[in-house]
């Protein structure tokens, strides 16, 4: 399934507005409904991480990379020579625990420091010396180590926030449709009950079918479906895990 199979916000709202008796969207505005659908997708995205994205950035002089706007968590960090459409050499970049740096050629502090004689923190990376490429987070930015200057680009691979990546024409994976519809009904009914207590009943009905924090509802079903690996991938993973490493 590719992103063109995804369904739109309006397809969800076609169900939601009927369930809430608000076909003319007079009780809540269209924009308000749209925001709730996006919230539902983001909540599901945080639980299942179904959208992977990546962004290529030329390594700047100060080695500080702004985290992509739609990134939720970093999945991989690669640096490479050449251009994004003609990569010649690449290397992994590793997160260095407890290190702090202001950027390129400003030095850094860390418990494990190359050449350190610290009696408690031995330098277990000593054998790699400066050749290992690492990064840290500083002020929300990614800061690359000085050694990364050998490369041209950095590719940030991340788990994406759905509403930041997908547009409203195709935001919702079909297997999550039921969960998103129920989530939106539940939230909207909870907002509407302040004016009309009948929405309390609608909210409770939707919440029980959704069972967001339990295991017997549409929310858990959607998470399970999204996380389920296709047969090909599952078979390959098993194959990979059963091979002795060289």
């Amino acid at each position: 399934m590719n992103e063109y199979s995804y369904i739109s916000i309006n397809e969800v709202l076609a169900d939601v507005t009927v369930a809430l008796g608000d076909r003319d969207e007079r009780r809540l505005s269209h924009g308000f409904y749209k925001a709730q659908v996006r919230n539902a997708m983001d909540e599901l995205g945080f639980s299942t991480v179904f959208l992977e994205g990546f962004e290529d950035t030329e390594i700047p002089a100060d080695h500080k990379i702004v985290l992509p706007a739609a990134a939720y968590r970093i999945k991989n960090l690669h640096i490479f020579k050449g251009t994004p459409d003609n990569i010649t050499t690449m290397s992994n970049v590793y997160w260095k625990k407890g290190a702090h740096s202001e950027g390129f050629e400003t030095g850094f502090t860390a418990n494990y420091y190359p050449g350190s004689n610290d009696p408690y923190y031995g330098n277990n990376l000593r054998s790699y010396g400066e050749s290992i490429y690492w990064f840290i987070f500083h002020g929300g930015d990614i800061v690359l180590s000085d050694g990364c200057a050998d490369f041209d680009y950095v590719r940030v691979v991340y788990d994406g926030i759905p509403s930041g990546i997908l547009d409203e024409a195709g935001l919702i994976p079909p297997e999550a449709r039921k969960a998103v519809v129920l989530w939106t009904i539940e939230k909207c009914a909870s907002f509407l009950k302040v004016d009309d207590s009948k929405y309390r009943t609608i909210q409770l009905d939707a919440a029980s079918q959704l069972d967001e924090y339990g295991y017997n509802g549409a929310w858990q079903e959607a998470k399970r479906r999204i996380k389920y690996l296709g047969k090909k991938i599952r078979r390959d993973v098993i194959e990979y895990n059963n091979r002795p490493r060289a």
Partner: protein
Amino acid sequence: MALAGSTLRYIVYDLITIFKQTYDDSDITPYQMTYWVLTHADRLRKQHIEKRDTGEYLAMFDVDVSTDTDGLKYITIPQRIYDMDKDRAIKFIAYQKEVGDVTPKYVQQTFSRVAAADAQRLYYRTEETPSATNPYFFRVGDIIKFLGLEEATVDSVEVGLITTLDPSLVTLDLDQPFDFPQDLLPVLQRQVLDIGLLALQTPRDLNNDGTGEAAGQAPQRKMTSVQDFSPADEDNYR
């Protein structure tokens, strides 16, 4: 507008005839009776519309858009509408989003309703922020102002309104079909009869019953307030 049914003239003269049969001295003019009928019919019609979700009383207008001194686009409501909760007498407002799009305006780009005092909250997040693709309207008396169209070129909008009957309309044609639910005519008739009976009710001793006896005398004795009590008037209270 109803396709057929009773005309206003039929209803008005029917009621005048009923009053004449009961009170031969009654002098209710057709103009006054029309006013009574329209006043009560308007109230019943509003209640009827609030109970039923139909298009029977929907009126659609194309209205030219103007721009006020603050740069906000607005229209003037073309006809008096009912004052319903959350401006529900304004069923929709829509404009043509794409030039050349032949689909009706009301399925192209409709406006969301907001109260003027609530409008600031719309700017708190992107999805709700007014724009040409997410416009809002709010009502200020007979003016409807728009949010989100400040930068857009919109010459006219289509509005769907639930308009009222107008009791003060002196040019009303009594022979046009009366735009009123036929099934509520007995209720309307009863309500107008009630107000007529009240208007024609007079004290029995002042009725002209043709016997020639003098009308009853009004009380002659001076009324004294208990607050003005003095021993000199004591006899009056024994």
